[in-house]
């Protein structure tokens, strides 16, 4: 690995961390699409800033472009407040308008400006190591590394300082306001950080990857944890993981780095979505199946408790009587036997003492409208789950 490769991975990782932190709060505030809007609408800010400063890494350009991002948010809210359109429509109205202004400005001045729409959308991470920062004649590393490094330091300091305020204003804006932590200030603070990060990351990774780096790691982390700090940690980890693996995938395929990192983010989310222990698709499907069988079991036990006549309790008649398919009645019978809830004598099914106790208690809970309690009770009664 040469130093340029190392620098690219370092920049990509810092960008990933800087994006994951505001991204986590955007996801929790159900504002993921705002990052999309910001990343596009800062384009005119960048173009104007570039005309003035002639330097894509100038702090003035970053502040000017970030300001366009905050204006976007304010415009979206302004339109939304009229009550004539919903928030998603307002977002859809504002950012294409601002983005298109930027596109026209680039096209009109294409000859003088080293900016093109491709670079804006996809970034040029591979070229980042060529634009060096020199202080008193000494090369101190790529400019984008310094830009994103400084932004990251600011973001982390703000996160540490205002973690409690961010948490409370995200979870409960009403309480937050009543305690004197203005949700409006926190909202615009977060929007400013998101905008600055987007602009800082934009040069390196482009408008589309910025959105992916903000949202995908946070969304994946959300499926895995029930703790805000862990969610932040996991989001950062996923971002860095995708940045580095994405870089090597691009290296191996000789493809776009930004594209490969985004693909890795997608693959990662897909994995988490399928395999997350409690919220993942497979776990949910497994629990659904378990629930269905256990509800059938309870139905079957209730039937046994209600009917003393042997005709109703004959093994072969279960299919006809409770109208179940053969496979299902076998599964249910099997589960009931394994848990010692029933005994079968001469093909006649009867409740055991334990089965009787379980059923009576379940009926009590159903009658008193506390069905949720049945779940807890299952732990006491079941040796094997459905």
């Amino acid at each position: 690995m040469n130093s340029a490769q190392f620098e690219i991975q370092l920049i990509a990782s810092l960008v990933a961390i800087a994006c994951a932190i505001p991204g986590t709060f955007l996801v929790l505030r159900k504002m993921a699409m705002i990052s999309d809007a910001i990343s596009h609408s800062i384009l005119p800010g960048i173009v104007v800033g570039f005309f003035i400063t002639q330097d894509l890494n100038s702090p003035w350009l970053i502040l000017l472009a970030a300001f366009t991002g905050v204006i976007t948010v304010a415009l979206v809210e302004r339109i939304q407040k009229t009550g004539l359109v919903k928030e998603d429509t307002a977002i859809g109205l504002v950012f294409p308008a601002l983005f298109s202004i930027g596109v026209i400005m680039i096209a009109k001045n294409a000859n003088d400006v080293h900016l093109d729409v491709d670079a804006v959308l996809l970034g040029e991470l591979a070229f980042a190591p060529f634009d060096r920062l020199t202080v008193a004649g000494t090369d101190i590393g790529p400019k984008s590394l310094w830009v994103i490094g400084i932004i990251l330091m600011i973001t982390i300091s703000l996160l540490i300082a205002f973690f409690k305020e961010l948490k409370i204003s995200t979870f409960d804006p009403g309480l937050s306001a009543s305690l004197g932590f203005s949700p409006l200030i926190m909202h615009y603070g977060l929007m400013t950080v998101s905008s600055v990060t987007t602009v800082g990351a934009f040069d390196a990774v482009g408008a589309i990857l910025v959105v992916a780096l903000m949202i995908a790691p946070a969304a994946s982390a959300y499926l895995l944890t029930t703790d805000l700090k862990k969610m932040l940690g996991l989001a950062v980890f996923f971002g860095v993981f995708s940045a580095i693996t994405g870089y090597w995938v691009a290296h191996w395929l000789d493809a776009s780095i930004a594209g490969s990192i985004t693909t890795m983010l997608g693959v990662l989310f897909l994995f988490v979505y399928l395999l997350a222990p409690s919220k993942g698709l497979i776990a949910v499907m497994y629990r659904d199946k378990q629930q269905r069988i256990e509800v059938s079991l309870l139905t079957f036990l209730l039937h046994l408790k209600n009917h003393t006549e042997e005709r109703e309790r004959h093994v072969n008649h279960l299919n006809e009587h409770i109208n179940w398919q053969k496979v299902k009645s076998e599964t249910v019978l099997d589960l009931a036997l394994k848990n010692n809830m029933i005994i079968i004598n001469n093909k006649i099914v009867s409740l055991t003492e334990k089965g009787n106790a379980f059923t009576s208690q379940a009926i009590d809970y159903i009658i008193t409208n506390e069905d949720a309690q049945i779940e807890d009770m299952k732990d006491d009664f079941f040796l094997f789950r459905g």
Partner: protein
Amino acid sequence: MDTHTDEHALNKGNLAVKVDDLTVAYNYKPVLWDIDLEIPEGVLMAIVGPNGAGKSTLIKAILGILKPIAGSVSIYGKPYHKQRSLVAYVPQKGSVDWDFPTTALDVVMMGTYGSLGWIKRPGVNEKKAALEALEKVGMLAFKSRQISQLSGGQQQRIFLARALVQEASIYFMDEPFQGVDATTEIAIINILKELRKAGKTVVVVHHDLQTVPEYFDWVTFLNVKKIATGPVMDIYNDDNLTKTYGINYKVSVQK
């Protein structure tokens, strides 16, 4: 207002909350119209009125969450923003996202943020206070549970614990009995009665008209305008209910 009310208020001593000529509008449509309201210290008060009467809006305007277009509010004689530490607020349970990645204990700790102020973080004392509040509402065993895994009643108790931890003088609660089971309702009202016994003022947006005389000693009838306010035993009658709800109301008030 009749003289009895004034006497009663005087007996109770200070005014906890005073609302003057408060008008709040959403998009130019008034939801609260010229409200004058005095809440004496130490009462357990219900705010009743039909849907859209502005009950939640009144609380939010008192707490400065909504900006009124006219009028003023004072808490023990001073504007709200100077008296924040005296006030605790329990929003409607439905106003927050219960899938938020946090635990019961952590939500209760949020009640301590107000006294901490900006930037300072909760420490050992705050945690201890939060655990005590959880114990008071019978939720200590659930302290590490993720909040989405709590039942509706348990979530409401968590909200109540969060208000208790603020150790306020005035408690505003927006429909604390909504969607809770009978056991939780009794547990909550017992805690509210304890608060009153300790000299606190408790203001509750309430929906169940049947339980007003049993739970509360003070009541405000609201329907965009204030209809009446005073001791339950004096003003909780068919006349005021009919004025508030617009249809002929018959309740049998046990005195």
